[in-house]
């Protein structure tokens, strides 16, 4: 699904927030590295997707009316086999319907559970003065405490991406901290440029969050994605 289709669907439902699956599909269509995440309408479909993407998997409720998925029991992680996936599918739907009875349910998103890497965050906001702005930093629960982040204005030149990566203290984690293998810094820089290109090409995107992004010795992967549209096209 391209962004245009996702936008059309969201607009028709009166939404500004794309679902996680819509956001990831749109980003994947633009060649950004996101964890493949597909929507299952039945337990059979969920099991088939899990088999396709490989175990372990994560299942999440997908509904425009449920923003905080964990709070309603709508997320199950580290599902190791088909039985666990089928059980999780039923439980997630039941929990979501119990918590938000009127919720429009798109289905259950199934994705491979990405192996842990160095945790990063990439975000875009639209600044009232400077327009779209990219933030990059170390991720995780302590992101707001340490504020280890760098900002730049869109569009980003490769030089800017390189400097952003080296500007944060967490660059040491990427370079192989305490005997850990070094991460693919070039892939991180490429991701930042791709995000810049994506929002430049799609001015309807008001906010974009890739949180977390995992960086590995080879490549990077955005594990979660969130896109907020501007009020009008």
């Amino acid at each position, binding site marked *: 699904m391209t962004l245009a289709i996702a936008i059309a669907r969201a607009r028709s439902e009166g939404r500004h927030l794309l679902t996680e699956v819509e956001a990831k599909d749109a980003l994947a269509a633009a060649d950004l590295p996101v964890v493949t995440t597909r929507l299952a309408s039945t337990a059979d479909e969920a099991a088939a997707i899990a088999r396709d993407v490989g175990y372990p998997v994560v299942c999440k409720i997908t509904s425009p009316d449920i923003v905080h998925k964990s709070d309603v029991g709508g997320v199950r992680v580290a599902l190791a086999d088909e039985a666990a996936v089928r059980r999780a599918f039923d439980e997630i739907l039941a929990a979501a319907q119990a918590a938000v009875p009127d919720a429009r349910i798109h289905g259950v998103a199934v994705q491979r559970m990405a192996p842990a890497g160095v945790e990063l*965050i990439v*975000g*875009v*906001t639209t*600044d*009232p*003065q*400077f*327009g779209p*702005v990219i*933030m990059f*930093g170390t991720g995780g629960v302590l*992101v*707001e405490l340490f*504020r280890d*982040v*760098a*900002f*730049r*204005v869109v569009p980003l*030149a490769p*030089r*800017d991406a*390189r*400097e*952003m990566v*080296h*500007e*944060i*203290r967490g*660059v040491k984690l990427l370079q192989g901290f305490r005997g850990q293998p070094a991460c693919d810094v070039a892939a991180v820089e490429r991701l930042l440029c791709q995000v810049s290109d994506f929002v430049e090409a799609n001015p309807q995107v*008001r*906010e974009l*969050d890739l*949180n977390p992004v995992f960086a590995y010795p080879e490549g990077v992967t955005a594990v979660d994605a*969130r896109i*907020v549209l501007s009020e009008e096209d």
Partner: protein
Amino acid sequence: MDQRLRRNLDRALNPAVVAVIGDKRQSGYMWLRSMQTFSGHVYSVQVNPDEAAGIAELGVRNFASVREIPEPVDYAVCAVPRHVAPRVLVDCIASGVAGIGMFTSGFAETGEELGIRLQDEVVLLARDAGIALIGPNCMGLYNPRLGVRFSQDQPAGAGGRVALVSQSGTHALNVSLMAAANGILLSKAVSVGNAVVLDLPDYLDYFLDDPETDVIAIYVEGPRDGRRFAEALRRAAARKPVVVWKGGLTPAGQRATMSHTASLAASPELFRGLLRQANAISVNSVDELLDVLQLLVRCKPGTGARLGLMAMTGGQSVVITDAFERAGLEVPTLTDRSYTELSEFFNIVGGSYRNPLDMGGTIRDSSENLDRLLHILDADTHVDGIVMEISALFQARRWVREPAALDALVTQLKAHQQQSAKPFLAVLHPSFAEAEVVTARPRVQAAGIAALPSFDRAALALRRVTDRARRAAGMLPLDSATP
């Protein structure tokens, strides 16, 4: 900025004829007195007959309207009350005035309806006519070479290579005076005021192409159009060093969501990112601005972090090292060859030459030894730049007794700087003998040597110009995590 507007701004900044509209005794005829240094023709426009005698005393011809001035006016200063400003502007437009510096205030900055309405009126008139409207609510233009001034304290007669663009009239004045006090002359200065027709990006574009300007300094509080500002900054800083002093906090702006990004997108951080992206140099005070300007104007640019430090004593050797390391620069060991050469003459009783060179005992009675030290550091492949302490603490008494001693030192340093490719700067601290420092500093600076007032300020300024040079050369800045 279209061609007509640019041409008019160019005429206003390089005028042959200036008109001062509405100057009066009550303000001490500050505008007419400021323009007494102007090399071209100055006329006054003042309708109040009570002011005629005072204006005549200044030797300036007065007219009842700018339309009566017998030659084309390049730059007009408008100091009339706000309700008269639109009519004056109409007259200026009708008589083909190229640019107008509107000192008049009481416009949109008041936030009141009348002020906003008057400003809108002025903007419409000016835009339509293509007149270069500077301000309103500003001090206008300064061209030291031509003697166009907005204060009687500003120097005139010679110009420099630094252009200044300021959102504050006070800072435009203060920076122009403080720069001159440090021997740095401006090419031009603009106090932009409310910047309703010509905005910061327009002036940046102008000075980018101005052949008299090598360096651009900006004081900004909040650009009116952030994206235009960012783009103009990128363009300008790609060709000339641009130093940006950001005052105040930009409005936090609307935060539509509670996402991580929105909660972290505080404007100061964003602004800093923007300056890095443009490769503009960020400073936080007038002192830091002047320090950086000194280095940009006087030092050869360098991308290296490794410094050879020359201090007078052991205690200073320790703290000068701390200062430069703290700023993210390096104080390396020297090459074996340098150590061999130093061992031949360096006075190691009470001194050391590892780096810093603790040189007091070595150079006290021998300018020849100072030359050798400079030469060794210049040739040392571990050293990218040289910083030398000039110590009033130990030398002030001698400078009083024997003024030629300082002159000889300055001549020696100047000769070194001219033949060396490495950045060189001096640190001349404030001292118990402040009068001697105040006398010595301009003598050092007049020789084209950067003289900064402390190790820490020198280190910070050098770090900043080094990072700029590195980015310009396609390198990463020095370890960015250093504050």
